[in-house]
């Protein structure tokens, strides 16, 4: 199976108050297409930074990131945006829905950014899959946290991404809702054959993935495959 993500000796340093602060150091791993991976670690270990670099949301200080066979370090911001739009999906802890759009319109956004036409039906199907067929025209503020995350899931899958990054997808939800979201997340992932990378504190959620990468102090301290 081919690698969808390859991280080669990546480090990331920020400058704060005139001092260099190293967040990630010499991270090196690759992810096979269609697999599920959890990145876990204590707060400040660099999980979210690693997710941002992997998804092309930020640039690494040294090393390189290859996403879907493309080395993205040297690409312009617009070129990386294009890659994200074509191949990447996101799920966030705080849902990150556009407050000015309805649930259905939020799901349509990635496709509309591509300039695709006749996308309403596909978005509706996804909304049905996440159980929100009756909430199509509600604005995010009119939805509960669990419902917002389900819209977020539908949006993530609407662009048929090759890889999905989820940052603490159940972090803001109660146990019961979390379980439903997990079920949906893994179910849709299986169905679509997407690669799934989850950043989480939640051991139960991490346990559902095929591989767990543990970070501490900006380094990989363990890489366990089931």
């Amino acid at each position, binding site marked *: 199976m081919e690698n969808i993500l390859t991280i080669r000796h990546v480090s990331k340093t920020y400058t704060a108050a005139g001092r260099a602060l190293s967040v990630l150091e010499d991270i090196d791993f690759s992810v096979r297409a269609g697999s599920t991976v959890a990145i876990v670690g204590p707060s400040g270990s660099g999980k979210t930074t690693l997710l941002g670099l992997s998804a092309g949301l930020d640039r690494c200080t040294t090393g390189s990131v290859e996403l879907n066979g493309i080395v993205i370090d040297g690409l312009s*911001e617009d070129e990386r945006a294009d890659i994200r739009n074509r191949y990447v999906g996101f799920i966030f802890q705080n849902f990150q829905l556009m407050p000015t759009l309805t649930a259905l319109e939020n799901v349509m956004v990635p496709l509309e950014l591509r300039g695709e036409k006749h996308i309403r039906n596909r978005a509706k199907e996804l909304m049905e899959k996440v159980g929100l067929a009756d909430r199509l025209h509600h604005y995010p503020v009119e939805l509960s946290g669990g419902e917002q995350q389900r819209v977020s899931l539908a949006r993530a899958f609407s662009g048929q991404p090759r890889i999905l990054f989820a940052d603490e997808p159940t972090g803001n939800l109660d146990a019961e809702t979390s379980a439903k979201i997990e079920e949906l997340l893994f179910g849709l992932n299986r169905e679509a054959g997407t690669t799934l990378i989850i950043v989480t504190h939640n051991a139960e959620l991490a346990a559902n993935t095929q591989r767990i990468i543990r970070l501490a102090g900006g380094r990989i301290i363990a890489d366990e495959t089931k």
Partner: protein
Amino acid sequence: MAWRDSRRNRSRLFLFISSVVLGIAALVATLSFGHNLRTAIDDQAKELVGADLMIGSSQPLSPAVQALPDSVANRKSEQCSFASMVYFVKSGSSRLVQVRALDGDYPFYGSFGTEPVRAEQSWRTGRQALVDKALMLQYGAQVGDSIRVGELSFAIAGALEKAPGSNEISTTVAPPVYIPLRWLEQAGLLKRGSRVNYQYYYRFIPAVNMDRLIAAISPRLGAAGVHYETVQSRKERMSRAFGDLTEFLTLISFIALLMGCIGVASAVHIYIREKIGGIAVLRCLGVKARQAFLIYLIQVAGMGLIGSIAGTVIGVGVQQVLPAVLKDLLPLQTGFMLSWTAIGEGIVTGMAVSILFALLPLLTIRKISPLYTLRLSVEPAAMIWDPLKILVYAAILLFVDVFAYFRMQSSSKAIVFTASLLGALLLLAGAAKLLMLVVRRLFPAKWSYLWRQGFANLYRPNNQTLILVVTIGLGTTFIGTLYFVQQLLIDKVKAAVGNNQGNMVLFDIQPDEVKGITALAKGEQLAVLEDLPVVTMRVTRMRGMTVEQAAVGRGRREGEGRGERGTAGDSGGQRDSLPRWIFENEVRVTYRDSLLATEKLTAGRLSPPVRSPQETVYIRVDEEYATRLHLVVGDSILFNVQGLPVATVIGGLVKADWRQLQTTFSIVFPGGVLEQAPQFHVLATRVPSTVVSARFQQSVVRAYPNVSVIDLELVLQVLEDILGKIGFVIRFMAAFSILTGVVVLIASVLISKYQRIQESVLLRTLGASRRQVLVITLLEYFFLGALAAATGIGLSLAFSQVLARVSFESSFAVHWWPVMVLFVSVCGLTILIGLYNSRGVLNKPPLEVLRREG
């Protein structure tokens, strides 16, 4: 606690308050300018009159009247002023001017401003003239050149830069030309019926008690139909006139300040919503609702004080610009002096209104539950009828009313101002809301995502769209209404000078000159469209009342406390008095037996010509004139026709169409009465081009130097010039409202920047290109600007329409080009400001932006 809590938000708090800075600046500037103007009037009143006393009349004064102040005067000057043509020999062109023939060394205080300076005295010695500087520039005349006034040539001794009591606008209408009085008779300009003002200037010995002198001589001056002006009366008249001007400007500034305050209320509302979490934590820790409220009230008050001080500093700067802005309207020099009263008033007003307006959102703090720390869904309960909020609304209205009262010194005017302002704001907000609703409903769902997203952004949570539409819209309404009304007036005059009507009027034509001038017109292929005889007379008795009886009636009415006027049909009260000017001013009447095409008889009947001296003379009176004086058909009027009493009765009332350019008279006699009275004629013709106009004027001026010519094209130019100058002053002040809207927009963009960045970063994360985010942002500001501009322009068109119908009795035709320019300018400005303040979001990687802004 207020200090500590504000630590991370001070710059944002100041941003809220920045909305009021410009309003306070405008307020302090106008208040200080008003103060400086009053001081200037006090200091320069003597120079404005140029003498201690001026007495004047439209008739030469008898030696007895002239001698009234002589006993205490040590210097005296005499001046005859009248409209006449002046001919520039070098350029061969002529122009209607105000000739002032002066004898003596007036002005006794101050001086003529001339170039060269020596001309101020030298012109009095020979056959020389002082000519208005702008007029000289216009006709390319230079010192030493000749001008012809009447039958005499004068050498130009100097350019007149300023004359006592004149301002730019008054000299634009009739540029002054001074000549020595001793040449006037030889110039042959004064003929029978010529409209001349005779003025006598006196300088008194220092010990004269002016009040006592005026008390002693004014009854005799009044009896002789002579008006007078002292330094004190000029001071009072100017203080009143310019007091009105500065109060008007102050009220415009105050409106800009209130606009800013609405911006503050909106911004503080958002600030408090963002602070809900922190306030809830404080409440958990035991802070009482009142204490939490005070923490934020202190922050807002502190920033209000800083904003007021900043506004005051800017206002003092603007104050220095105002004299330059108003120079065309002012007949005096205003210096620069700090007015601590104005500064104090500005700071107190600024603080008071910012706190009052900020109180509205601050009051919600009292309702923030500590439970919010546990459940995010617990938001402060919005009470529709919160008694404290109602109290704050009432306090705001009261403050506005009290402020207006102190400016206008009239409680009824203050109430009208407050109610109008409230009405205008509600109207603006209502119109804006309606427009937003309509656009949202009609917005095509099939438009591309970028358009829909740009439009949808106007409705993001905590949006300030309505506030921005109202503030920017109000500025647009100001500017738009001003421009449209200006255009309306110009259109009205242009329509009056339509294709088939006269555009040149010749007056002061003696009866024996009519034939000759008609022949000159025919020589130029010009048709005489109108030839009217004009007879000058005075009213001696009206409705049986003389000037003394009219004054008694007026006094009795005032004593009875019945001040209001009614209509002509009202009984008693209104008809037992008449204004003094009816008897003091000359009346110019014409005579004819038929109605003009532009006249309509609305009461009474058209009387036939008078055949014998025994017949009753039935005159026709203009309906508006009759309404103003409560005259009805059957009322008697006794005229003094240059020494001869003529008794008349009102036989009919006539409504004239003033929109048509016609020499219109308030009183028209029938034929058979005035034919032998001293009179002059008015002729109207239509000249096809400026070349023919110049040629015809020259031939008339050469052959008949006493005849004056009004070129209506020139009048139109002068009108445009004057309206432009007045419009500039109002636009300058209205700009503060626009700028306040701009500041509220900048503050709003910056306040909501974090939210915008979150949205843009999310879009970038989902794969939106820089161009797509840019287009969405651009469209958002385009829609915002378009809504504001459309609201403002829509309202200004509506106001102009109402003004056209009610005030100008005219139809209003929209000029679409200025509308488009205004629309594009407002949209362009909004887009520019919006994009400039969002620029950081477009180029950087999403996470970097979040780190930097977070």
